[in-house]
């Protein structure tokens, strides 16, 4: 019972379904299951590690300098971006050409930045809460990715009117799922 309630809470806090963050990235990667899965995993890495950085910044930054929080978050994400690309390059140079695109797409997108701001607004007290919130956001993105993958073929099939085939139908589909989530909360 606890798991089901937690699942509902996870849905309620889902970045895509309730805050519409990361939609463009989700649609770009929706072309193939492999792209979708790897993009979702990469975003999860960014949200988790980024939340770690956000915790450090929020701890050190005084309230007067609130406006430069965006700049500092971008620098943190930029650092993770460079480190991740470096690690991928030295771990497998042959596949670097394929894997780097997931990092490029995932780095500076609304899902990652939105997670950092959302986590900060929740005023979490300790590092563990920040990282957990970041990981939850990543898992929520993966969940939304699975929800979209299940219907992807049908949303792009020839039965769908040409004007709505693809992205417009995906928007309406996610909208109806989001509506159901709101009805539950």
């Amino acid at each position, binding site marked *: 019972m606890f798991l089901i309630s937690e699942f509902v809470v996870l849905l309620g806090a889902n970045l895509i379904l309730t805050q519409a963050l990361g939609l463009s990235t989700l649609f770009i990667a929706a072309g193939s299951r492999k792209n979708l899965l790897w993009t979702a995993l990469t975003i999860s890495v960014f949200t988790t590690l980024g939340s770690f950085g956000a915790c450090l910044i929020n701890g050190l930054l005084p309230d007067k300098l609130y*406006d430069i929080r965006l700049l500092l978050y971008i620098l943190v994400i930029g650092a993770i971006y460079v480190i991740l690309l470096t690690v991928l390059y030295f771990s497998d140079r042959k596949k670097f050409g394929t894997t780097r*695109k997931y990092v490029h797409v995932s780095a500076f*997108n*609304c899902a990652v930045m939105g997670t950092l701001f959302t986590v900060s607004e929740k005023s979490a007290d300790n590092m563990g809460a920040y990282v957990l919130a970041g990981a939850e956001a990543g898992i929520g993105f993966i969940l939304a990715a699975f929800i979209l993958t299940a219907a992807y073929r049908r949303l792009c099939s020839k039965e769908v009117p040409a004007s*709505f085939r*693809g992205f417009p139908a995906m*928007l309406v589909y996610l*909208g109806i799922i989001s509506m159901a989530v709101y009805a539950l909360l």
Partner: protein
Amino acid sequence: MNNRCSILDGFITGNAVLSGFMVISPIIVCGNTIMNSLALIYAFSAITFLSVTIGSFIPKKLSFGFKTIIHAVIASLVYIPVKMAAEEFFPGVIERIGIYFMLVAVNSIIVVQSQTKFHNMTKGKMTVSLICHILGFDVVMLVISAVRELLAYGTFCGRIVDADMFISGLGMPFGGFILLGLACGLYRSIVPSVKNDDIAGGGSNVSDF
């Protein structure tokens, strides 16, 4: 004529929202009243124009990754004075919009499209094309928010309109999803040069990076 068309296509045929599916989140979540949309339009227009213009002076020889970071840093620096001005012109709206005011600073046009599209043009063409793309977003944002405010709350620009029926769901994010999806479908059926078979929309794909 073809050159003029390709520069102006950011407004209609290559609309950033309806065709490119970029910068969707602010429209869906915050675009439920005209006042919110005006604040977001101001933020988006100012930050995007200034960031892309300043970013056009970055040397092209740098790698994609470094240029992306520099563009994002420029946008975050431009954000600070824009936000200060917004607090003067739109008091109270910034709190309602919340994180989306900041997220506009890392939109796809600044982070990705500036490198893949705008900075490959001459300065003059880039300026016109950028303005068209920004106007394209602004118009969509305004129209969607006007419709949502009217149907969901029965007001227009904060003033009560004589309406009997309210569909409060349209003011919620899921209402934004559905309405935007319908608007995109309508746009595709009206604008003939938008390819309906182009499932990726906007031409972007993971393999483009």
